[in-house]
């Protein structure tokens, strides 16, 4: 099933922070992981991903460095301490929203 852009809106930062919290990744790897972990639901466009990554880096949530592996240089991103705080804040918000939506939608079915 394809994702609804309106539903995805605002959650991508959370997804990126969560993804990078487990291990440093480069951009292409992030897209693949998100698609794989969400069973094909999330397919973030490259044109949206890189500006967002750079902005989060600029804000101090992420830090990037070039790593050479197998003759290829890639730019790996990792979450900073500030980014972890942001992740915790966004997770809390998301859980609150998710719970509220569930409460309302399940009540409507009752």
């Amino acid at each position, binding site marked *: 099933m394809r*994702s609804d*852009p*309106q*539903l*995805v*809106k*605002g*959650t*991508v930062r959370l997804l990126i922070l969560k993804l990078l919290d487990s291990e440093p990744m*480069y*951009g*292409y790897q992030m897209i693949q992981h998100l698609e794989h972990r969400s069973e094909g639901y*999330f*397919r*973030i*466009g*490259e*044109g*949206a*991903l*890189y*500006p*967002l*990554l*750079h*902005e989060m880096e*600029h804000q101090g949530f992420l830090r990037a460095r070039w790593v050479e592996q197998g003759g*290829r*240089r*890639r*730019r790996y991103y990792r979450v900073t301490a500030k980014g972890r705080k942001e992740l915790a804040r966004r997770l809390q918000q998301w859980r609150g929203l998710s719970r509220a939506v569930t409460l309302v939608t399940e009540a409507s079915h009752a």
Partner: protein
Amino acid sequence: MRDFEDYLAAIQAHLSVPGRRSQEIVAELRTHLQARAADLRNAGMDSGQAVDEAVRGFGDPTTLARRLAEANGGQGPVGPLRTLLSLLIAFAGLFIAFSLVEGEPELLQRIDRAAAARSFLRPHDLGILAMILLCTPVAPLAGLLAGRRWWLAATPPVVWGITLWGVILAELIRKGLPLPKWALTTEGPYSLMLVFIAGPLLAALGWVGFRAAARRGQAATVGGVGVIYLVGFGLLSLLRQVHDLVGLLAIAGVAGLIVAVLGAALLWQKGDRWRRTALPGLGVCLVLLALMIASITADADQKVWIWLVVILTEMAMLAVAAGLSRTLTARMSRSTSTQDPGEQS
């Protein structure tokens, strides 16, 4: 592989960030494109299709370059310096133009005498015409230095020129319309007309500029800088023609209020930091007021220094305005563009 390079070159051409950072961004995108194309080829796609498909994922190069530039803080440390320098040139050019006119060099005196003999135009009209002629070339001159943001430096002098044309138009209308006495005096009509014509015009420009920031951040910069630039210049113009203390206090107070309220109102729309915006405007006006009071009793040598400080103060005000509008631009652009990456998901 050639297509990658064409595409990346198109991005780099529109990427207004410092050179080293620009190269780093392009290198990062290149590794992504190469990996994506390789995966597509492994999945059975032919080489050309794989390249096309990989490039398609990134979208329009101009849009991507703009988003990347915004995400990377615009032009970086070099850009604002160049912008500030170009504004400085524009301001200096305007100041020289005014000084030439007010100093009434021999050429202008001859023109004035010729005009008076023909009873066609009054000396002040010619003074304004001379200002327009001198101000207008300042725009491209400053623009040359400003590089890609030539329009940013060019806008204030051009708006100033348009405003002066407005004054001339008002003077022509005056001959056929019953305007109030303050608009008819020759001692300070241009300053007064400036307030009444340029004020609303610039407020509208600023408003439209900041409103447009949601879509086009650069328009906000022009609007914000233009407003404060000409409010500051209007203040200078007013203060140079009024010599009594009460008049100085009243004008500085009103001008300070305009700058402060305008800045505060613009940020109040976004719900934050409006007090912080109001304070620089008030502070600058208080400094100008103090300097002008000091200039009343100063001798000629001291006045040179006082005017120098006045110019520096106004340049500081421009810097504050530029910084403010850049901050607003970045914040408003983020709220509408990069917070919505899901659009391409």
